[in-house]
C-alpha cells in the first residue's frame, strides 16, 4: 500500500474478479510485481481488490492465463475526476472566467483620493496624475513604481514640496504636502508717508525714505512726514510715525434706556422633523405672550458622525418685555465716554493710546445729557501718498 495521496493522484480502481483459480491469479500478480491491496474474498468465488490505474491494462493477459473474469466496481483518484470535469467544459470555462474576472477587476485602479491639498485644486492634482498614468480603470501593473510617480508628480505640480503616492488594494492615495510660500509683495509705486491729521509727532522711525519732521514737531494734515525720495531715487517710504491728535466728541445721552429682557416665562413646542418638514407633536395651544423670542434646537438622529435628516426639534418661546432703565446723569456720562473710547479704538487702531480727556461742555435737558469731550490720543498718523511724476512744463 502506497501513500494514499500519491495513490489518489495516480488513480486506482477497485475491481471484482470472478473465476476458479483466484489464488493463482494473486500469486501471478505478486510475481509480476503488480501491486494490489485490500484483497477481500467474496462469496461465490469472487474477489475484490484494488489496482493502480497504471497497472490496470497489464491485468488482461494474466486474467486470460488464469481464466478469470473481471469487472470494475469503483474508480478512485484524480484521473477519473479530471475526466469527469473534462466532460463539463463549459462549467470549467465559466469557473476560469470567473477567476480571471476577479483577477482582472482587482488589478484595476478603482479609486483615487487626493489628500492634504489646500490651495492646489484636487482637479489639478488628478490631471497631473492622469498624465503620469494614474486614472480610474488603469491597470495597476501598467503604472510606474510609487516612488517614481511620487517624484514625477512633485516635479509636475508646482507649489508642492512633496507628493506621496501609495496604493492599497485598488485605491490610490495621493498625499500632497503644499509648500509654504513667502507672502507675495505687491509692487508698489514710490510713495511718501504723509500725516492724516493735525498732530504733534511723538515718535518717528523711518525704515525707508527720508524723515522730514522731528519729534515734537507740529504737523498739519497732508504734510509729508517721510519723503519717498532718497537722494535721486524714488522709494516706497516706510516707517512708523505716531503723534498726538485731538478728537472732539459731541454726545447726546438719554437718561432713560429701553432694554429687552426675558420675563422667565416660556413655552416649549416639540416637533418631529424630516428634512425640511416638521410636525408639531407637543406644545399646542395659544401663546399668551405679547412679545417673545424663539429659540430652536435641533437634535437629529446620528449614526457615528453622520447626521440623519430625521430628528426632534425643540422650539422655545421665551417671553420678553421692555423695561426702562433710568440712568443718573453721572452714569450717562461714564457710558458716553466709554462709548467714545471704544469708537476711538475702532477707528484709529487698538495700539492708540488715550492720553487724556477733557469734558468741555455739559448740559442736562429734556431727559438727555448733552456733552462735548476732547480726547488727546496718541495714534498712528502715517498715510501713504503716491509720488506723482512731475510733468515738465
Amino acid at each position, binding site marked *: 500500500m502506497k501513500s494514499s495521496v500519491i495513490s489518489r493522484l495516480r488513480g486506482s480502481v477497485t475491481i471484482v474478479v470472478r473465476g476458479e483459480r483466484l*489464488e493463482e491469479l*494473486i*500469486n501471478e500478480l*505478486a510475481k509480476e*510485481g503488480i501491486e*494490489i*491491496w485490500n484483497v477481500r474474498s467474496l462469496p461465490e468465488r469472487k474477489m475484490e481488490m484494488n489496482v493502480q490505474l497504471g497497472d490496470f491494462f497489464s491485468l488482461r493477459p494474466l486474467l486470460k492465463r488464469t481464466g478469470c473474469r473481471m469487472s470494475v466496481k469503483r474508480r478512485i483518484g484524480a484521473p477519473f475526476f479530471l475526466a469527469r470535469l473534462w466532460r463539463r467544459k463549459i462549467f470549467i470555462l465559466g469557473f476560469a472566467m470567473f477567476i480571471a474576472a476577479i483577477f482582472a477587476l482587482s488589478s484595476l485602479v478603482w479609486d483615487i483620493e487626493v489628500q492634504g491639498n489646500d490651495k492646489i485644486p484636487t482637479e489639478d492634482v488628478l490631471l497631473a496624475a492622469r498624465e503620469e498614468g494614474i486614472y480610474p480603470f488603469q491597470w495597476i501593473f501598467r503604472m510606474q513604481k510609487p516612488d517614481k510617480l511620487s517624484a514625477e508628480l512633485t516635479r509636475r505640480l508646482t507649489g508642492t514640496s512633496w507628493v506621496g503616492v501609495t496604493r492599497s488594494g485598488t485605491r490610490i492615495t495621493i498625499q500632497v504636502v503644499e509648500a509654504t510660500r513667502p507672502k507675495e509683495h505687491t509692487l508698489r509705486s514710490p510713495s511718501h508717508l504723509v500725516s492724516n491729521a493735525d498732530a504733534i509727532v511723538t515718535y518717528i522711525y523711518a525704515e525707508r525714505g527720508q524723515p522730514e519732521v522731528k519729534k515734537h514737531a507740529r504737523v498739519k494734515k497732508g504734510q509729508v512726514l517721510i519723503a519717498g525720495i532718497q537722494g535721486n531715487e524714488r522709494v516706497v517710504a516706510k516707517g512708523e510715525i505716531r503723534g498726538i491728535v485731538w478728537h472732539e466728541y459731541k454726545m447726546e445721552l438719554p437718561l432713560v434706556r429701553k432694554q429687552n429682557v426675558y420675563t422667565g416665562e416660556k413655552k416649549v413646542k416639540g416637533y418631529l422633523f424630516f428634512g425640511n418638514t416638521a410636525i408639531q407633536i407637543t406644545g399646542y395651544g395659544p401663546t399668551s405672550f405679547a412679545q417673545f423670542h424663539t429659540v430652536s434646537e435641533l437634535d437629529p438622529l446620528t449614526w457615528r458622525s453622520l447626521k440623519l435628516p430625521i430628528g426632534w426639534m425643540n422650539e422655545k418661546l421665551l417671553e420678553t418685555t421692555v423695561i426702562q432703565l433710568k440712568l443718573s446723569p453721572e452714569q450717562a456720562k461714564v457710558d458716553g465716554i466709554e462709548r467714545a473710547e471704544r469708537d476711538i479704538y475702532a477707528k484709529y487702531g487698538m495700539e492708540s493710546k488715550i492720553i487724556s480727556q477733557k469734558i468741555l461742555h455739559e448740559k442736562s435737558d429734556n431727559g438727555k445729557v448733552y456733552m462735548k469731550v476732547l480726547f488727546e490720543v496718541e495714534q498712528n498718523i502715517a498715510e501713504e501718498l503716491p509720488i506723482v511724476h512731475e510733468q515738465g512744463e
Partner: protein
Amino acid sequence: MSRLSRKIRNWAVEALDLPGDLVFDLPRLTMIGNKQLLVENHQGVLHFSPEELQLELKQGILKVEGTELAIRTIMPEEVIIEGRISGIKYEGVEE
C-alpha cells in the same frame, strides 16, 4: 536438501548465531495483536476465503484462520493479512 548440507547449516545457525529465516528460508511472521499479520518468505497463496488463508512455504503450508480476513498488500515474498486472526497452523513441516 541433503542431509549433510542441513547439518552444516544447523551447525552454522548454532555456532554463528545466524537467524534461521535467512539460512533455511523459513517464514518470518510479525503479528500485531490479532489484527494484522506480516508473513515474509512465503511462496504464494494456495487458498483464500474470509475464514481461512493458506500460504505455501518452502516446506509445507501455513494456515491462517480467523474471520473477515483480507490481504492488505501482497508482494512476491511478503504478504500482509488483516482481519480477526484466531489461529496460525503449520502443516507438513519436517521435524
